[in-house]
């Protein structure tokens, strides 16, 4: 079998679907970190922290990082590299190989559905960021002329409404034709990068985009920390006041279970675990590449952006210009904070406000695009594996899926109900389920001892032995508890929303159709692999990773 896979075209030919690899050690880490660093780092984290005890929020936050985020990350990195050695790169076939059951191939469909369905709306949001950056670059977005802060806020809401087409369904009627054009550009960039391959497209782009994002964040941070007391009428609204609003601890919050749930949820969603991306990215690593230190490094990179930039910039500047009441009001709304409040904040910064606004939204655009490219690669790998086709055909199928899904998201833009529904059912519920499934497969089917032994192959640091019980009991229990509370609090309301809203029903129908189509593809892939004599566990005696391309890819 390995002779089969060795006899194909040169591995760099992207059209043949040949094996791919990360070019450098840092490449895969920046790509995973780029996937994790998104709008939530800058817009969701500070709101969650401020609303749940300020500085005290960091206690459950770091505990959740150690008990949930990093161990699940290690499990995914390890399973991904293991799958890659067996010739598999997509979650369905990797989970099938490790779980040694066809059932896990079908459950693993979630590892394709989640990134793909989230990309349907994520590239749309990415287009908003690009639109705002361009409006600042061209001077088109000048709220200072609108009058005082209430008028500027109203104008900012109006511009956001026009950008996303929030009042009416339909791309023309909704007024978001410009956003549609920008989405087409952004989508083309994404597909081009993904089509160019792991090292030629994704890795090279992330190596450029991540440092650029950091530079943009530093520029905005310096400006925020040097704002002083811009309005003498409100002497308490200064930099230290803003930092105090975000960081002063309220220890009473630690007695509230909601604080712990919010902290665990923030870590969970921020690190991109249970998303289907890490398992796919790690499958392109060499067989003896380190996964333990790489997993921690990617998580640490994400935390640097979240804590030191997100925690310092966002609510500090909102407080300085708008005061505690308004900053509190917008803190819980990611879109409200990013697209309604921040333009008002930049308008108060004087002539430099437009420059800082352009840098800020360009940074958000980079954060979004490094995340969105990671959402396409798992689907691409799956289409290649399931159909035995090269990258060109797989990319074409991916484009068809995404054109339909994104068009529906943009068309049903009224109240962002469609987008919101996909985000809830796939981008939230689906992630919980996939994370639990992956963790259970790792801890109970693969086995913690075998899993850690596999993880330690080529590892530059050892996983402390305390993580054996953590992976076996603590992390699954933590996740299960989080999932139980989450479903108890939300599921009833979500079901009600679907029964009452037609766009929400369309969204759920679309998700169902995607699941069905992906399951059919798994079935076809199983048949194809079986015909080639490749079982659940893939290539049994994997050769060097560079030779272990997608199992029996070329028919």
């Amino acid at each position: 079998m390995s002779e089969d896979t060795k006899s194909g075209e040169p591995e760099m030919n992207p059209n043949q679907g040949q094996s791919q690899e990360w070019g450098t050690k840092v490449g895969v880490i920046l790509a995973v970190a780029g996937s994790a660093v998104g709008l939530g780092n800058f817009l969701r984290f500070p709101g969650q922290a401020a609303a749940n005890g300020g500085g005290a929020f960091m206690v459950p936050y770091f505990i959740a990082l150690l008990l949930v985020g990093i161990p699940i990350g290690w499990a995914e990195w390890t399973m991904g590299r293991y799958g890659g050695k067996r010739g598999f790169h997509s979650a369905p076939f990797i989970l099938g190989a490790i779980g040694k059951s066809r059932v896990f191939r079908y459950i693993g469909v979630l590892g394709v559905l989640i990134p793909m369905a989230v990309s349907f709306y994520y590239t749309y949001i990415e287009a908003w960021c690009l639109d705002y950056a361009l409006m600042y670059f061209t001077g088109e977005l000048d709220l200072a002329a609108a009058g005082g802060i209430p008028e500027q806020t109203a104008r900012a809401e109006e511009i956001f409404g026009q950008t996303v087409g929030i009042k009416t369904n339909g791309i023309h009627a909704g007024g978001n034709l410009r956003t549609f054009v920008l989405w087409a550009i952004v989508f083309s960039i994404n597909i081009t990068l993904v089509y160019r391959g792991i090292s030629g497209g994704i890795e090279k782009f992330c190596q450029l985009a991540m440092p650029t994002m950091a530079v943009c964040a530093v520029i905005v941070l310096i400006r925020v920390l040097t704002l002083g007391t811009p309005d003498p009428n409100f002497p308490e609204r200064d930099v230290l006041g803003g930092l105090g609003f975000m960081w002063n601890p309220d220890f009473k919050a630690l007695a509230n279970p909601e604080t712990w749930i919010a902290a665990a949820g923030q870590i969970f969603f921020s690190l991109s675990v249970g998303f289907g991306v890490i398992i796919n990215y790690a499958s392109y690593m060499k067989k003896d590449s380190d996964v333990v230190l790489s997993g921690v490094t990617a998580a640490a990179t994400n935390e640097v952006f979240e804590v030191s930039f997100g925690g310092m910039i966002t609510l500090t500047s909102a407080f300085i210009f708008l005061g505690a009441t308004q900053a509190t009001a917008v803190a819980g709304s990611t879109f409200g904070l990013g697209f309604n409040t921040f333009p008002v904040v930049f308008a108060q910064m004087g002539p430099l406000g437009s420059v800082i606004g352009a840098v800020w939204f360009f940074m958000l655009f980079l954060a979004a695009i490094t995340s969105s490219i990671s959402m396409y690669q798992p689907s691409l790998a799956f289409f290649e594996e399931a159909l035995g086709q090269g990258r060109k055909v797989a990319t074409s199928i991916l484009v068809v899926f995404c054109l339909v899904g994104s068009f529906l998201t943009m068309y049903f833009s009224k109240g962002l109900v469609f987008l919101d529904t996909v985000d809830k059912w796939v981008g939230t519920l689906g992630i919980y389920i996939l994370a639990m499934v992956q963790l259970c497969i790792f801890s109970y089917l693969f086995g913690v001892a075998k899993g850690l032994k596999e993880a330690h192959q080529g590892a530059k640091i050892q996983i402390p032995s305390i993580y054996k019980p953590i992976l076996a009991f603590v992390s699954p229990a933590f996740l299960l508890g989080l999932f139980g509370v989450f479903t108890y609090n939300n599921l009833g309301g979500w079901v009600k929303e679907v029964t009452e809203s037609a766009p929400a029903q369309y969204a759920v129908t679309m998700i169902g159709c995607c699941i069905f189509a992906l399951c059919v593809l798994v079935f076809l892939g199983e048949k194809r692999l079986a015909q080639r004599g490749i079982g659940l566990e893939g290539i049994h005696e994997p050769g060097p990773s560079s030779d272990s391309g997608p199992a029996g890819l070329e028919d």
Partner: protein
Amino acid sequence: MEEHGLNGLGWVFMICSIVGVWTLAIFCYKKLLFDDE
């Protein structure tokens, strides 16, 4: 009106959190890039 100036514990939590994540990141990148196999 609630007091919002950064207090002593606020400083501690802010500095510890930021220094903590940077230290972890620097340790990881140093080990990954400069430590031999």
